[in-house]
């Protein structure tokens, strides 16, 4: 469905769109763009399936349940993701890695964001989305290069179509838009997943990215992990909109809210979003309600700004235990499967421990090597100067 507006005749434009939407979904254009009144949630925190009419869906906002095979594959990644988060945090505590912004508690979002994509699609992650990056297939040790301090990035973005993990907030959303735009101009069928946090939605680049994607009608899914905090700042200081998904309306796109700790709902919503986008719906905005269970990074002290009781409340909504009971109840997850999955997770953890155990010697002259594709005489001169210093140091030994 194409939502488009011709503002030179504002009244009729809205009516045209309304007609479009009414045909397809039987609802008004605003009801299409506004998120459903409740977040989409399919599985309760205790792992039981919610009755269909309590899943939060509405006309135009209906989601098929993912297949068993998809659920099992996703659950496996969920377990691996949790293990990776905890392994990395341990490595930081041991001083083998310098910093790690853990997505502990948000792994369902991480897994869904990566798994809903096809091979040729692209993913644009933030610093917190290491698990999504790995789920997409990037080597775990390469992902950790940045957090270990060896180099700014460790993987080749083109190998798995994953942008660099981005620190300047929301700048990557525009890169996602550009990648989608280039693909569209070449007639390629690429969907782009653009990730950011709740705090990041306040940045100007968030606005510009959503608007560019909408105006150029690009297949970009903007996926906001609303984990309730931007470092210490609670969401109530970022926005007083009814929800972050409501921001979609201002760009003429559709928004949706989903329980970010419910992997089933996430897969359902994200799969459909990717399908719509690939079919030409234009961009979509999805807000996932989740929670950052640990501090912002190891350098942060979360007890300064949030009560333990709040953390405990979210502990009860853990995406992992929920999915585990759901699958067990459904008869999909037996002990054998559980063990196999646990072994897989352990193998990845071992890979991380071993990969990060080796001290890789740094190459000082790399400072100059990659600044430009075509080097400059100035950098040659500076590189020679450093080489000279190093040689003198070496011979002084």
């Amino acid at each position, binding site marked *: 469905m194409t939502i488009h507006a011709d503002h030179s005749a504002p009244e009729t434009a809205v009516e045209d769109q309304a007609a479009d939407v009414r045909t397809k979904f039987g609802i008004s254009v605003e009801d299409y763009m506004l998120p459903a009144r409740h977040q989409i949630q399919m599985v309760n925190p205790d792992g039981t399936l919610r009755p269909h009419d309590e899943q939060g869906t509405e006309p135009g906002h209906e989601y098929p349940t993912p297949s068993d095979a998809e659920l099992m594959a996703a659950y496996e990644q969920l377990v691996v993701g949790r293990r990776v988060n905890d392994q990395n945090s341990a490595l930081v505590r041991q001083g083998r890695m310098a910093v790690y912004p853990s997505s502990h508690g948000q792994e369902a979002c991480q897994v869904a964001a990566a798994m809903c994509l096809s091979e040729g699609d692209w993913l644009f992650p933030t610093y917190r989305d290491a698990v999504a990056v790995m789920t997409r297939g990037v080597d775990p040790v390469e992902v950790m290069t940045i957090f270990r301090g060896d180099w700014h990035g460790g993987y080749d973005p083109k190998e798995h179509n994953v942008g*660099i993990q981005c620190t*300047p907030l929301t*700048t990557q959303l*525009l*890169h996602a838009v550009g990648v989608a735009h280039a693909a569209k*101009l070449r007639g390629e069928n690429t969907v782009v997943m653009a990730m950011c946090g709740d705090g990041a939605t306040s940045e100007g680049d968030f606005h*510009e990215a959503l608007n560019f994607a909408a105006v150029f009608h690009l297949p970009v899914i903007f996926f906001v992990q609303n984990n309730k905090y931007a470092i210490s700042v609670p969401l109530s200081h970022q926005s007083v909109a009814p929800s972050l998904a409501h921001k979609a309306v201002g760009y003429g796109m559709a928004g949706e809210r989903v329980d970010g700790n419910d992997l089933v709902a996430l897969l359902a919503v994200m799969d459909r979003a990717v399908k719509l986008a690939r079919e030409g719906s234009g961009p979509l905005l999805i807000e996932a309600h989740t929670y950052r269970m640990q501090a912002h990074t190891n350098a942060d002290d979360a007890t300064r700004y949030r009560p333990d009781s709040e953390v405990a409340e979210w502990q009860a909504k853990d995406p992992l235990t929920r999915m585990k009971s759901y699958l067990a109840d459904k008869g999909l997850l037996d002990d054998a499967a559980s063990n196999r999955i646990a072994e897989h997770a352990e193998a990845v953890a071992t890979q991380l421990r071993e990969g990060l155990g080796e001290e890789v010697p740094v190459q000082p002259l790399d400072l100059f090597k*990659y600044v*430009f594709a075509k080097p400059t005489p100035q950098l040659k001169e500076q590189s020679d100067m450093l080489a000279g210093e190093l040689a003198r140091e070496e011979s002084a030994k």
Partner: protein
Amino acid sequence: MTVTTTAAGTANVSAATANAAASAAATAEATGPQSLTMAKALNTAMADAMRADSSVLVFGEDVGMLGGVFRITDGLMAEFGEQRCFDTPLAESGIVGMAVGMAINGMRPVIEMQFDAFAYPAFEQIVSHVAKMHNRTKGKLKMPMVIRVPYAGGIGGVEHHCDSSESYYAHTAGLKVYTPATVADGYRMLREAIDSDDPVMFMEPKKLYWSKDQVDLGALRAEHDAGTSTEGRAAVARPGTDATLIAYGPSVPTALAAAAAAAEEGRSLEVIDVRTLVPFDDETVCASVRKTGRAVVIAEAHGFASVSSEIVARVQERAFHYLAAPILRVTGFDVPFPSPKLEHYYLPSVDRILDAVDDLQWED
């Protein structure tokens, strides 16, 4: 919004814009020498690059149907279609950020910032991504992108339309910074910038858009196809023996005028057109200063912590014992760019350059 005043002695901009448009519309296909504006040379460079490579895209504010407020992209949408030359929403960070993504995904974007000061909303994208992407990914992602910035004064523009912003970019590691001063260099350097796998801040001296020269486009095209490069190569715009004037972009014609005036008084000034600020041509510049023993650096930008400071610093580092006098600077004052009726007092002028040359301790 461009203000013209007779006080400032500048050309009428609306008329000039119309002229540029008219000349841009005229095809420039002849092979022999012809009279061409810099506007047309830049326009032709983009058109040639777009013809040669379908991944070259042109976008920005008003660059499509209107052909840009200075008409530099005139006719590109008509020739190459709305897919390859198009208007974006009005958001500079958006334009640059989207261009980064396009460059990641195989395109060669050539984008226009409408005026110098309107590139500032894109500063984060330029400094934190355009400049760093190649380095951060160890060359896995290239940034073959040109950011065209009409810059500097001399056209009677109101505030925010006349900033000399080149020093911000030249100070940013990872950006190349080009600025042509002649019509031929307009063509040459823009084609080279578009060919470059490195991001280029392409600073266009807007007061020179309507300057004309006799150029041979056929020869320039052949030169381009032969791979001739101006990156890191300053030009000796006028040879001389007594002192060196080092200038770039909008200040080159002023420096040449000063040299011509000095010649009448019997003083032989060499004029160097730096052409690319990054990389910088130490060799040519220092060779000249070693020869003349005296130098004045000329730039419109505020002097403080600028490209002109850098030129002074590196020349004194490399040619110290050849210097008969301190290297002096004639630059814009360290004040916000003034209103049209006052810009005349702000801009480096022939008189101010000659005063500086006189101050080069000729009696010592």
